[in-house]
């Protein structure tokens, strides 16, 4: 008598490993639930952070990273400084500046829904005079209505930034929609989309420079002449790849006398930093996912131990049919891994679906990092193996005869 026991083939192995699942599918499903929830949470957290990052990066791409902002800083004495009135003209002479727009904050005026609103309730909104090419330079869309033109820039009409419109409760533009601005009514001609590169614009009621001068007294005095009010934010588009050169000379060009009173920034940096932050996943939810996985592992281990105790006669019979201890151990280990893998697969699927639904609602691209689902499946596998190890050892060491004995 020679020979040794054979390994089961894959199909037989799978059939034997799934005996418990097929006999009690509800129990199997419930015991795999914890792992499914944990995996789903982890995949969704990673998927959502990647998708929101992808969304922001796409937005940055659309907005362009070549926008530079020049703003008035503080004077040496700590007062708010102004940019010289001719700063835009000088900056536009820098050869690598392709486009330029500017706004000037009318500091003494605020905007209200009606004259009945107490003056201190400004809602943090600003009134800004604007050059007419602002939306083009900022890549900001027009949400409703029409942008200012040379005619409307001279009359008491205003275009609202997205936040300003929301705060003023103006979500449609009716023909006679108006706001109380500088002690008079201004007609609202439209509402802008949000301008991630220039958050100040979102908070502002925008009027033309001529209108600001005529109706709001926004002027400056150059020599003996009274001119339009000064700009205090200039938005310059540098030629692609020349942002650093332009940035280096901007302060000096804007205000040759006191370049230190000028702040120059590249607002896409802020967005890029925000994108990086969005890519960093929410560790609280990730932690909850891990806790669910651990609870799931305990659940699977528990079910496997019960299963081994309940199936003593099956184990005895298999030993009588010629199963080795190793084969019994493999059977229960494989069953545990199978359970966990089913939980992991369901979890990955749900996590991906959750990400897809949320990301498409936000208009983001759906990005599931490969580590999310491979990690989900791999940790399910590991958990199944760990949870099944002890019950499988127990099963293989169980003396076959006790369960086979006639009572």
């Amino acid at each position: 008598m020679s020979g040794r026991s054979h390994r089961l083939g894959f199909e037989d192995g799978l059939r034997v490993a799934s005996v418990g699942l097929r006999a009690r599918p509800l129990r199997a499903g419930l015991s795999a639930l914890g792992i499914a929830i944990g995996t789903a949470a982890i995949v969704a957290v990673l998927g959502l952070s990647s998708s929101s990052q992808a969304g922001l990066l796409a937005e940055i791409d659309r907005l362009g990273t070549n926008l530079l902002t020049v703003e008035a800083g503080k004077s040496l004495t700590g007062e708010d400084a102004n940019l010289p009135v001719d700063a835009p003209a000088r900056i536009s002479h820098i050869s690598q500046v392709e486009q330029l727009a500017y706004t000037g904050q009318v500091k003494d005026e605020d905007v209200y829904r009606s004259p009945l609103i107490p003056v201190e309730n400004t809602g943090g909104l600003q009134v800004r005079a604007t050059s007419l090419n602002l939306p083009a330079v900022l890549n900001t869309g027009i949400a409703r209505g029409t942008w200012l033109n040379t005619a409307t820039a001279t009359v008491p009409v205003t275009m609202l930034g997205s936040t300003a419109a929301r705060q003023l409760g103006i979500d449609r533009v009716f023909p006679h929609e108006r706001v109380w601005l500088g002690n008079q009514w201004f007609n609202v001609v439209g509402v802008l989309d949000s301008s991630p590169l220039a958050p100040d614009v979102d908070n502002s009621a925008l009027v033309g420079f001529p209108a600001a001068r005529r109706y709001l007294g926004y002027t400056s005095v150059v020599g003996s002449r009274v001119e339009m009010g000064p700009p205090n934010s200039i938005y310059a588009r540098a030629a692609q790849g020349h942002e650093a050169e332009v940035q280096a000379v901007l302060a000096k060009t804007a205000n040759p006398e006191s370049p230190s009173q000028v702040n120059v920034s590249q607002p896409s940096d802020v967005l890029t930093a925000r994108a990086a932050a969005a890519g960093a996943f929410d560790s609280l939810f990730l932690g909850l996912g891990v806790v669910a996985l651990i609870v799931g592992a305990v659940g699977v281990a528990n079910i496997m131990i019960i299963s081994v105790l309940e199936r003593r006669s099956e184990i005895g019979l298999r030993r009588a049919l010629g199963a080795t201890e190793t084969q019994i151990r493999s059977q229960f280990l494989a069953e545990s891994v199978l359970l966990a893998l089913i939980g992991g697969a369901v979890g990955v699927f749900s996590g991906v679906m959750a990400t897809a639904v949320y990301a498409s609602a936000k208009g983001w691209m759906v990005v599931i990092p490969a580590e999310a689902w491979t990690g989900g499946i791999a940790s399910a596998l590991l958990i199944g193996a760990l949870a099944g190890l002890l019950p499988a050892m127990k099963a293989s060491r169980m003396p076959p005869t006790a369960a086979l004995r006639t009572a």
Partner: protein
Amino acid sequence: MSAESVLSLEGVTKVYGEEPPVPALRGVSFSVEAGELVGIVGPSGSGKTTLLHIMGTLERPSEGVVLINGTDAALLDDRKLSYLRAREIGFVFQQFFLAEHATVRENVADGLLYAGVDAELRYQRADEALARVGLEDRSDFKPTKISGGQRQRVAIARALVGRPAIVLADEPTGNLDSATGASIMGLLKELNADGATIIMITHDSELAGQLPRQIRMLDGRVTSDTGAKPATGSMAGGRDQ
């Protein structure tokens, strides 16, 4: 102990536990030749099941030698012993032990699952074995849908499917009414007439009386052995005295 003995026990004892030690077998020796049909008879607690488990290598004796087809079971490790069970020993139990969620045919084919036989051949053999026990028309039934007698026939088919050297049956009629039990006895006799070596435990002397050879047990000892049939009985009998 002739070389052609299918099974041979020499001074087998089994003691369970330590405090107090429970001697279940106290020196059992006999041999079974190919083609025999042996009944092991004795009251409950006399050690029959323990003996069957030791003959089937599910349990090792405390002392003594178990030879199967001339191989000393004590020399085999778990893998080799398991393979021996898979190929050479078929078991039939009082409670049938059928898998409820598998069909009759799958249950029978699983008798060869651990014998390294590929699936196609397993199912072919299962069909043959089912035909042999008269259940070919129940192949696709679940065990819960057939009668107790039919279940035991399925279990017998599973034990036979690998054409083992020995079939060991522990009170195979114990869970059946007497008419069904008698038909199972009839089947076992037929199978034996076809060449199967069968050792069957029963506590029913009347059933045992129908068998060509009876080994009687009491308190872990063999009290009588009617011996093998004359044709193969040269070495049987007398050795337990």
